[in-house]
């Protein structure tokens, strides 16, 4: 690609960036907010909003520079040459997307970092101290998200190894899902672990905004406005629709009734699974990826969770961790070189790709889990991770914020 500004690409990437913002503010906030108890709705929404704000500032000060600076230390981290956003000119083109301005690339990647940390909040709601969450956001984005983004997208060692992750199956979803699992293991169970949505309508709006915004997430990850973006766009929608249908069918088989929460959970699982694959696989493969991902996530939520006994409140590990993992594996199977010359999967004559994908999954999963445990432990020993029992029972809205979601 010649490093020449393309106004079509730039326009699409500006729109994509705003679309990805919509996924967190208010997509995730509404999706999660509706699923919690009504005494925790504001705290739940607030966690996503504050995560977005903190990450936005970290990203321009040093996050982007370490994640996407020229590779150094043999693939471990980027060389932060523009700290505090100094020296990035208005007309400078992005080194990794040379047809758009670097400012647009920074903003686009910033929204990915922000949604990744916001997703984790769904697992820890209804019991985590807000102050501790704020500190966790700073630490986690710095020590977990930034290095992993560099390894996979910033030219780090997983990228050099040939790991395929179009829009964040490992960087965003596996990463947030595993970190969520680590954090709930430290936090322990809530006193009341029932999942009784206080306003499922909020969650439907939130999930729908996620679906809408995800076109920016996946088709935007083409970093250009052309055939690849179009293919990723259609693959995204197809997998999402297929996953919703298969989740509803599983619901019907297991409980005899199709549920709306099942439908939107399936849609989100489908969006997650197609994320790493969107710009590598055919539309037909997207159908298979979508249909199967609901099976994977449903198994995790209805079997694994009760078997292992962790209290992943809103199933962040079950949906993002598990479907992210499936998507990353499926990319290694279905990547078609005629869709994207950068990726050839097992079914197109490159059996080694699945090994690379497994290595990427293992590295991201283990690093995210271990470092999240360490950061969580440090916070537990200093600020304390969990609110006291009285606050948990009365609800976090009135106790952590002196506000309540409903006046009636």
């Amino acid at each position, binding site marked *: 690609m010649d490093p020449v500004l393309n106004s079509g690409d730039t326009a699409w990437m500006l729109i994509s960036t705003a679309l990805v913002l919509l996924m967190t503010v208010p997509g995730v906030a509404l999706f999660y907010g509706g699923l919690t108890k009504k005494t925790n709705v504001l705290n739940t929404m607030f966690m996503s909003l504050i995560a977005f704000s903190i990450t936005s500032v970290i990203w321009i000060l040093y996050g982007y520079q370490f994640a996407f600076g020229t590779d150094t230390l043999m693939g471990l981290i980027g060389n932060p040459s523009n700290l505090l956003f100094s020296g990035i000119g208005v007309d400078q083109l992005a080194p990794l997307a040379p047809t758009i301005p670097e400012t647009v690339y920074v903003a686009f990647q910033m929204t990915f970092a922000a949604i990744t940390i916001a997703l984790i909040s769904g697992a820890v709601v209804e019991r985590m101290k807000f102050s501790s969450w704020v500190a966790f956001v700073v630490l986690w984005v710095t020590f977990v998200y930034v290095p992993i983004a560099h390894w996979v997208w910033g030219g780090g060692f997983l990228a050099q190894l040939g790991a395929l992750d179009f829009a964040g199956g490992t960087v965003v979803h596996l990463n947030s899902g595993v970190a969520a699992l680590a954090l709930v293991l430290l936090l322990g169970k809530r006193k009341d672990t029932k999942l009784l949505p206080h306003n499922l309508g909020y969650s439907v709006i939130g999930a729908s905004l996620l679906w809408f915004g995800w076109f920016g997430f996946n088709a935007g990850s083409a970093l250009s406005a052309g055939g690849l973006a179009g293919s990723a766009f259609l693959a995204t929608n197809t997998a999402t629709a297929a996953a919703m249908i298969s989740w509803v069918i599983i619901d019907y088989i*297991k409980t005899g*009734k199709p549920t709306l929460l099942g439908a939107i959970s399936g849609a989100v699982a489908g969006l997650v699974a197609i994320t790493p694959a969107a710009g590598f696989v055919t539309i037909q493969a997207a159908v298979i990826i979508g249909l199967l991902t609901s099976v994977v996530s449903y198994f995790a939520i*209805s079997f694994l969770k009760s078997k292992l006994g962790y209290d992943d409140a809103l199933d962040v590990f079950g949906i993002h961790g598990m479907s992210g993992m499936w998507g990353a594996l499926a990319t290694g199977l279905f990547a078609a070189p005629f869709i994207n010359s950068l990726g050839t999967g097992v079914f197109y004559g490159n059996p080694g790709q699945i090994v690379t994908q497994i290595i990427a999954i293992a590295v991201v999963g283990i690093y995210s889990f271990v470092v999240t445990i360490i950061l969580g432990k440090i916070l537990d020993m200093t600020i304390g991770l969990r609110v006291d029992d009285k606050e948990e029972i009365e609800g976090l809205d009135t106790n952590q914020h002196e506000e309540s979601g409903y006046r009636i």
Partner: protein
Amino acid sequence: MKEIVAIIRPNKLDDVKDALEEIGCHGMTVIEVKGRGRQLGITESYRGSDYRIDMLPKTRLEIIINDEDTEKVVGTIVKTAQTGDIGDGKIFISPVENVVRIRTGESGDKAV
């Protein structure tokens, strides 16, 4: 004077209200409440887990009437709020010592 407290299905409120109006009984206080009786609850299912929702939304009517209207009012409520299924609710009838109309200060039967 009697106080009639009727716990009914929320979706029967309009029918009961209209029927009471037809027999000349206009005044009432309506409260949205939750409770349970023999119905005990219903089952809801979220992400594959079943939960028993054992406090169900009901509507509570409070009506003050003169003694001679009791049978008519209670009969009307029973007739219009009835579906025949478990969960139709209950009516409680109790004596009222006195009633005072705040606007005029009058009391007793005149104030009902």
